């Protein structure tokens, strides 16, 4: 019975905190996905560019951010960002250590990692567009911006949905590593609850179950989006196993 009390919403229960932490995990992952979408688009543009230096830069970005452990990148952003902020504070006359807010550092770090994976997804989606469609747009004299907005973007978004679903799942699990910065997301809260009650097994199982809930729920959401985006496509059923 003790475990029910610990996981419940009473005065000694961690239920409310765990629910809040789950929402924090969702929020930090969503912020990371948004940052990753912006950076990832830029990296995709660089990778697909015909200029060699840009191409090299884009490829270097995806190689580094996919080849180095996530934890190391989080340390880089958190500690590196904090020393930048501290130096900046010194310039403004504040002496002492200034930390980068852990939500910002965490979402930035996971976002930059997800940008590398998103760039590959967008690149694949772009290459999946039939060349005939772009040629047709060129033939009727559509300007570059118009091609991008009316032909390329809508199709890239559609083709990218399954890949984005995978990136989201990846970021959701990477967000657990943000716990090292002290942000009270699901991993960190489970850890604190486990430590202060000495019920490690119980709270890590509870945290794990909440993660499973998040991943299976977001799977459903992405499936729904995919069905919706493909509802006008005659070949919609081919991609699904």
């Amino acid at each position: 019975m003790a475990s029910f009390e610990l996981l419940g919403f009473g005065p000694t229960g961690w239920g409310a905190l765990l629910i809040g932490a789950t929402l924090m995990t969702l929020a930090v992952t969503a912020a990371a996905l948004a940052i990753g979408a912006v950076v990832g688009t830029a990296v995709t543009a660089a990778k697909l560019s015909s200029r060699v230096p840009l191409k090299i830069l884009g490829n270097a970005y995806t190689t580094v951010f996919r080849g180095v452990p996530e934890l190391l990148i989080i340390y880089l952003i958190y500690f590196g960002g904090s020393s930048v902020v501290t130096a900046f504070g010194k310039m403004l006359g504040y002496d002492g250590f200034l930390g980068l807010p852990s939500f910002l550092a965490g979402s930035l770090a996971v976002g930059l990692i997800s940008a590398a994976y998103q760039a590959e997804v967008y690149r694949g989606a772009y290459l999946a567009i039939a060349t005939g469609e772009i040629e047709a747009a060129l033939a009727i004299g559509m300007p570059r911006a118009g091609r991008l907005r009316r032909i390329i973007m809508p199709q890239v978004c559609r083709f990218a949905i399954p890949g984005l679903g995978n990136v989201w799942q990846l970021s959701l699990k990477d967000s657990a590593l943000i716990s090292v910065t002290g942000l009270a997301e699901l991993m960190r809260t489970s850890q604190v609850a486990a430590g202060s009650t000495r019920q490690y097994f119980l709270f890590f199982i509870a945290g794990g179950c909440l993660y499973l809930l998040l991943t299976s729920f977001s799977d459903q959401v992405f499936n729904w989006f995919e069905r919706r985006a493909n509802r006008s496509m005659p070949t919609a059923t081919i991609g699904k196993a």
Partner: protein
Amino acid sequence: MDIGFLYSTFLTLMAALPTTLALFALSVFIGGLLALLVVWMRVSGNPVLSAFAKVYIFVFRGSPLLIQMFLIFYGLAQFSIVRHSFLWPYLREPFDCAVLSLALCTAGYSAEIFRGGIRAVSAKEIEAAKAIGMSGFLLVRRILAPIAFRHALPAYSTEVVLMMKSTALASLVTVWEVTGVAQRLISQTYRTMEVFLCAAVIYLVLNFILLQAFALLEYALSRHRRAPSFATVDAAKTA
């Protein structure tokens, strides 16, 4: 940039490389064997075994590796049954716990990859094998496994690179591998960029070597799909 500092950092990190490599090699090996077991259960046709494999894959792919590692390292130690069992000398060690959780986790991902490889084996080849009287282990060994392995290889190489990166999490259960040592150096010196650079180079080189090795293996296993090279054509002509 201070070359002397970079050099000494690099040496310190290289001293932790054997731990990272040991974590990686052991967990990929044990995880690979576990994955074979899980995928065998998954495709066995037995509803109970198949359901168990599905749950296993769902749980280990759906939750973060870190929470699995903490569950094994901190969670299991809570029970006195575990503390008094013959397994305790292993479960007490952070290194063994890290290997165990890495292996369990990669088994879930690899099982799905292997299953994809098995599904890619054409039914005709299995029918042909059955038609000439092959069955059971012989069919698996001669037809199913080689073809499935070739199909699964590209995806499996990605998973192996992910494993190399995942060994970094062992530092959070107090195993001093490369990332853990890098973190200690960062918090001692506050020279984030230099330490990061050294550690990143180590991991990038490791992953590069891994990917090259897999590309080589893939090349060696796809001889039947390549056009005959000029060397062999010339050799045939002169023969």
